[in-house]
């Protein structure tokens, strides 16, 4: 087993265990903590895949931005009753069965795909992922993917406005 593999299995184990914790913890703050752990190990996996820029973005945006927002909202809507309530909804057995089916499907596809090498071979000139990662991503974003980039920015703008309007306190005159 190489160092690479040991690292991968550690990260994967952390990711999966904490993901399981996310969906089983009673307290949303604990769930959020474990989600942060998952996000970190996913960032580590990005590093293994030579995506340094993406790993940094993952931590900055997900951990530093989205999860702070999550914690903020959890604290705002903090209910005392949460700790005594049922955790799962009534149809959880059906949900588990459905998910099991999904997992089996995934497993089948991956095992089959892995064995018969269904993945098409590399097409086009290979790009060197290891050199100047952020610079190359930047160039591609602003040249090849200009339109999606602009659309993404528009989406964020819409999200900002939408979030503000949704969360805004309703004025007395509106009621």
């Amino acid at each position: 087993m190489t160092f690479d593999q040991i690292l991968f299995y550690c990260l994967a184990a952390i990711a999966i265990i904490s993901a399981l914790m996310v969906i089983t913890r009673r307290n949303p703050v604990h769930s959020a903590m474990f989600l942060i752990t998952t996000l970190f190990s996913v960032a580590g996996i990005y590093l293994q895949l030579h995506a340094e820029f993406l790993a940094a973005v993952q931590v900055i945006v997900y951990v530093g931005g989205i999860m702070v927002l999550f914690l903020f909202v959890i604290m705002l809507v903090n209910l005392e009753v949460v700790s005594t309530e049922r955790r799962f909804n009534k149809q959880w057995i059906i949900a588990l069965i459905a998910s099991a089916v999904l997992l089996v499907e995934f497993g089948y596809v991956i095992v089959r795909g892995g064995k018969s090498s269904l993945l098409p071979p590399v097409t086009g000139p290979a790009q060197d992922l290891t050199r100047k990662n952020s610079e190359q991503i930047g160039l591609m974003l602003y040249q090849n993917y200009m339109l999606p980039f602009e659309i993404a920015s528009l989406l964020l703008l819409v999200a900002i406005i939408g979030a503000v309007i949704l969360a805004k306190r309703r004025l007395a005159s509106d009621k």
Partner: protein
Amino acid sequence: MADVEEKVITALHDHDTFLDSSELIINMGPQHPATHGVYRVRLHLDGEKVLGAESYIGYLHRGVEKLGEHGDYRHYGPILDRMDYVASVSNNLGYCEAVEKLLGVQIPPRAQYLRVILTELQRIASHLVWLGTHAMDIGAMTIFLYCFREREKILNIFEKYFGARLTTNSFRIGGLQFDTYDGFEAECLDFCNDFPRRIAEYEQILSDNRIWIGRTRGIGILKAEDAIALGVTGPVLRGSGVKFDIRKAFPYECYADLDFDIPIGEMGDTYDRYLVRNEEMRQSRRIVMQAIEKLPDGPIMGKVTKVIRPPAGEVYHAIEAPKGELGFFVVSDGTTTPYRTRIRPPSFVNLQALPPMVRGQLVADVVAIIGTIDIVLGEIDR
């Protein structure tokens, strides 16, 4: 008044909060760095916005009023030192004058001037404590130590004169116990000559500071009519633009002979009160300098019998203490013990203005407003 009360009550039952669910109730105090003692204010918050406030007092209650009815007239003085403990001298002045009024005693001019000098120095010291703690509440920590540096000079004079720094006591019914020590005048003048430079220093740090202005301008506005309705006195009243000072309105001691101005504010916000108190320190300095110049020779004790036995009757006498009108209502039944000693402490009455002032402000402003009212818990709880 009823209007103000109405506002406070509606504030407490107004449930228009951020999540339309529950308001947050915070107990500020009795253990809190910014409540200036063991004072507790219960804040009803919507996020950071204050919906209402209720004061809970009495943590420092020592039965000062009741103690006055158990000793003879002279014994009350040292107890009163502990009332407004940052302005002990003023407490004694009010009480002694009330009893003198009851007795009908005239005190000698030298004693009058000395009393004025000492109480005005005490006013400066008290205002310095106020400025230091107020600025510290708002986050400017250095000014606190600068203020205490100057206060130290006053306390050194006090220590030499009274033999004590905090609970000073030399005012007696009929005059003073001690005459001045050698060099008293020189030391007072020395302080007064140095003092304008120091006030300029404080104002240089604070007055034009944009953060300071942002934290005090328009915060805790008390309109003149509200201030009068609430019975507020002292710098808080004058900050609201009402030109009322007992030293001018009902001159006692030798204030009629002295020349000084009464500064008033315009808007009645925290910044105005800050300016008013700063100006009051300057005016007190003026008074001290004039009084030292005019200080007559002569006895320091009037004609008072060994045992004080005022004729049956009652008297109310108020002085302008650093924090406002400090009134003493003394009832005599003709014996050597007062029948009733009722105190009207300025902090207690001024504190009433807190709930209407903090309504609609933010949590951070509450400490600024508590600071600007300038309360001393020893005086509130008595």
